[in-house]
């Protein structure tokens, strides 16, 4: 069922050469031209689209090629991150073109080969490539073009024809047939994507929608898979970076004599505050980096104290305010409500903390460069590597190779700059893999948050006003097209992060955009007379503030959405408990979106939810007690419905929380691969458990102190892990939505609510460490 393993990485160009086509010719013609400026002040040439989905490409030949043997080679700008997208995209091509799965070769994310599809992130790959644009539209266009050519060839009309594994034939006379290879093998389609091309209906699918095993798994299990960490280039050297000892330190002096004569050492490289060494072997580079004497400046001001950091956040005067929704009657309705409630929720900085520290290989020549990278964004990285090196981005090639799971902007981009800078300095290919500490101390962390929520209730216990105000820190992010300083290496090399755009007075929104899930599921989301939300609370205000962060931040699986959903789903539970309402019934009372209602009901039903208020009556005040909680989300306000029931045990002696069972119901439209979807939901759920119970970035007054797996300890394999049940709702008439970030979003709320159900203790600060649980139990009296 799987394509030859070598096709996955090595023979991409050969595959295309065999089709007799020039890739660059197709790719050059596309994209909005943007003029940028390099670090050296030279104008850089054409660069491509700025948005998350890039410039796209309207040329069919940029996406699909028919080989001389009738097989199909497809090109995608959305890459495999360990989430099964490569296999699902291969299924898509096989399905739409009517060929067997193993007749499809998919080439992913290479600036010489594939269309500019921006960044593979934000659970946007299914929306981008599995609906009626981009890869899916290209495949549908190609199928209709092939059928039209076959109709001409066979002297029949298109509706008399059928396709079986790349052969088009007359239904009534099966001997009249012609294969794809004969029709166009090795030749260009020379046509644009046809917006009217029809996708196959999910009801007729035979490949898409099936639990096709993932293509990479046999190679991974046998230790043969080529991660970016395994890329080896002739003449390759090994680099190691030397990061500042504390946040804000600058280079005063690099004493190259301190490493003179060390075995294998090739060069010490300094550029502004970027310092690194290059050696013949990895071990030699590590030793030289450790011995190299660098004098660093001492920053003037200490870091804000971790203890009390959330108060520091809310007290910042330089902020950027955004109103997501404001009915302008919230204060009045809160004042007039029969009952008012308020609570504050706190979320820490967390790390991507990939298990494999980031790695890249770069081969920089005088006027060109090739970078092998696990970046989620080959085209943007091409541009910013050009800026960092002072090269024309058109002469930079970025080739994606999978890394360890990234969960967002981990070190993949920054280490690509590390390798590129070191390679440029020595004029030979250089491989860099970060040390564990260098990765963890300088990441773009997931955002901390402090969230104030207020609600007013009427005499019947219904919510009549909802108020959200939150603060979160920001510095840097993805480098995008022109900001290498958004990650640490670019910054050290002399590039500034995107400037903080303060805005003390948030403007009224022009439309309802709930991409951050700042608005809870229970409000109408009414802006200018249009209701974009999923609930029925009409009086609503959501005001968010970003403030400058002392550390780099960036998207971490479910950025802001997870933190906001933790607060909203906890608060909803607090309100339900205050009027002795069942948490499921109380949510349904305030929801109006039928698909969100359906996932809530489906999760509750599968978990055998018994309607009653929380907390559980009769649980003892000592020993181990159990409870259940629910949480739900419409991810990003437009990208996947999910509800989860968590069942937990709390040891009231130790404060330890164990999650016993998680029941997940998910609706992300038509399902491409049910086993892959289930794997993502299970993984998201346990990633969420780890972040909910264990993970928190720590620091002292000058540096990050969570720098290894002892000081940042996630969920190990030895931990007690919950049973996970999934309910997959296959919405064949709907749009394809993302599913990689839905489950992780609802865990903290569901677990918090289950702990409350078990003990009566409300935890409002993640992670729920035994110390925090015990403090809550003690405060209970």
């Amino acid at each position: 069922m799987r394509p030859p393993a070598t096709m996955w990485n090595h023979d991409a160009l050969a595959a295309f050469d065999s089709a007799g086509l020039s890739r660059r010719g197709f790719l050059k013609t596309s994209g909005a031209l943007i003029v940028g400026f390099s670090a050296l002040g030279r104008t850089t040439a054409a660069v491509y689209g700025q948005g998350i989905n890039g410039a796209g490409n309207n040329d069919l030949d940029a996406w699909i090629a028919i080989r001389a043997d009738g097989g199909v080679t497809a090109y995608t700008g959305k890459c495999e991150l360990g989430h099964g997208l490569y296999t699902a995209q291969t299924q898509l091509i096989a399905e739409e073109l009517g060929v067997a799965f193993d007749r499809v070769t998919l080439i992913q994310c290479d600036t010489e080969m594939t269309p500019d599809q921006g960044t593979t992130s934000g659970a946007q790959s299914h929306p981008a490539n599995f609906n009626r644009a981009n890869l899916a539209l290209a495949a549908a266009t190609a199928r209709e073009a092939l059928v039209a050519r076959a109709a001409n060839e066979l002297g029949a009309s298109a509706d008399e024809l059928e396709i079986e594994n790349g052969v088009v034939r007359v239904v009534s006379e099966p001997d009249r047939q012609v294969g794809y290879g004969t029709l166009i093998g090795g030749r260009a389609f020379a046509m644009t994507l046809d917006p009217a091309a029809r996708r196959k209906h999910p009801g007729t699918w035979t490949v898409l929608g099936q639990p096709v095993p993932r293509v990479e798994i046999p190679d991974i299990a046998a230790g043969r898979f080529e991660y970016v960490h395994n890329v080896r280039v002739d003449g390759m050297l090994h680099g190691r970076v030397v990061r500042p000892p504390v946040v804000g330190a600058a280079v005063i002096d690099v004493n190259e004599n301190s490493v003179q004569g060390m075995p294998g050492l090739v060069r010490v490289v300094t550029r502004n505050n970027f310092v690194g060494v290059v050696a013949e072997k990895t071990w030699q580079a590590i030793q030289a980096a450790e011995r190299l004497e660098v004098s660093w400046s001492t920053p003037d001001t200490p870091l804000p104290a971790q203890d009390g950091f959330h108060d520091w956040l809310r007290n910042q005067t330089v902020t950027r305010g955004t109103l997501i929704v404001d009915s302008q009657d919230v204060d009045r309705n809160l004042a007039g409500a029969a009952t008012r409630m308020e609570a504050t929720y706190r979320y820490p900085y967390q790390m991507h903390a990939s298990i494999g520290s980031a790695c890249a290989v770069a081969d920089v020549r005088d006027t060109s460069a090739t970078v092998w990278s696990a970046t989620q964004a080959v085209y943007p990285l091409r541009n910013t590597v050009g800026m960092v090196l002072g090269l024309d981005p058109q002469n930079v090639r970025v080739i994606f190779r999978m890394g360890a799971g990234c969960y967002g902007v981990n070190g993949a981009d920054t280490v690509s700059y590390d390798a590129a800078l070191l390679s440029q300095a020595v004029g030979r290919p250089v491989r860099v893999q970060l040390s564990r500490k260098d990765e963890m101390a300088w990441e773009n962390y997931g955002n901390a948050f402090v969230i104030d929520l207020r609600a007013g209730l009427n005499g019947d216990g219904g919510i009549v006003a909802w108020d959200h105000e939150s603060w979160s820190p920001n510095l840097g992010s993805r480098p995008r097209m022109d900001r290498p300083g958004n990650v640490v290496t670019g910054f050290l090399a002399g590039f500034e992060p995107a400037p903080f755009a303060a805005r003390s007075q948030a403007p009224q929104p022009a439309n309802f955009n709930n991409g951050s899930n700042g608005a809870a599921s229970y409000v109408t989301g009414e802006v200018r007379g249009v209701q974009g939300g999923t609930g029925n609370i009409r009086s609503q205000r959501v005001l968010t503030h970003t403030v400058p962060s002392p550390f780099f931040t960036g998207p971490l699986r479910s950025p802001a959405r997870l933190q906001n959903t933790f607060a909203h789903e906890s608060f909803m539970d607090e309100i339900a408990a205050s009027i002795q309402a069942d948490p499921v019934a109380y949510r349904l009372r305030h929801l109006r979106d039928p698909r969100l209602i359906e996932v809530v009901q489906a999760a509750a039903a599968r978990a055998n939810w018994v309607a009653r208020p929380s907390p559980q009556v009769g649980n003892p005040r000592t020993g181990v007690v159990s409870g259940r909680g629910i949480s739900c989300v419409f991810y990003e306000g437009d990208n996947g419905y999910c509800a989860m029931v968590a069942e937990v045990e709390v040891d009231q002696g130790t404060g330890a929380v164990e999650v016993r069972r998680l029941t997940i119901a998910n609706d992300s439209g038509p399902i491409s691969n049910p086993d892959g979807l289930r794997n993502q939901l299970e993984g998201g759920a346990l990633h969420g458990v780890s972040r909910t119970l264990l993970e928190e970035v720590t620091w002292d007054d000058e540096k990050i102190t969570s720098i290894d797996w002892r000081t940042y300890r996630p969920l190990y394999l030895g931990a007690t892990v919950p049973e996970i049940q999934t309910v997959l709702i296959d919405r064949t008439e709907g749009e394809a939505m993302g599913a990689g970030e839905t489950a992780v979003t609802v865990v903290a709320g569901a677990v918090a609510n289950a702990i409350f159900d078990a003990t009566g203790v409300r935890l409002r600060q993640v992670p729920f460490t035994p110390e925090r649980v015990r403090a809550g139990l003690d405060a209970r009296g």
Partner: protein
Amino acid sequence: MALFNLNVDGRTRVVDVDPATPLLYVLTDDLALRGPKFGCGLGQCGACTVIADGQAIRSCITPVERVADEAIVSLEGLGTPDGPHTIQQAFIDEQAIQCGFCMNGVILTAKAFIDRNPDATDLRLREALSTILCRCGTHVRILDAIRRYAREVSA
């Protein structure tokens, strides 16, 4: 520098390296193996695991000179994509992989443990895996795959 005749996956491999070099870098740089991975360099995550004389060890903190006389088995030595070892097949059958970077440590640690303790309880299995990290949250399927292997070994 010193010459070592390493026994890796049943073959003798001659390398000329600093005796203090951690085994991991010899395997990945000098022998170009793709199985063992650098995860932390601290012996905390398991990604660098190899089996040396039947014991799962952390190659990132093991100097090459210490295992110069031992029979080293890497993930690549167990089987191939087309002819996987029983435990590799169990992970394929269960689709118990997401990014897969942890798999080297997971599979080799589990194999070394189950081969000695095929009837181990779940608790003892989890203890054996307690210093192995998976960041994708594949825990449930990983345990299912190891149990499948244990059943097949016992059968």
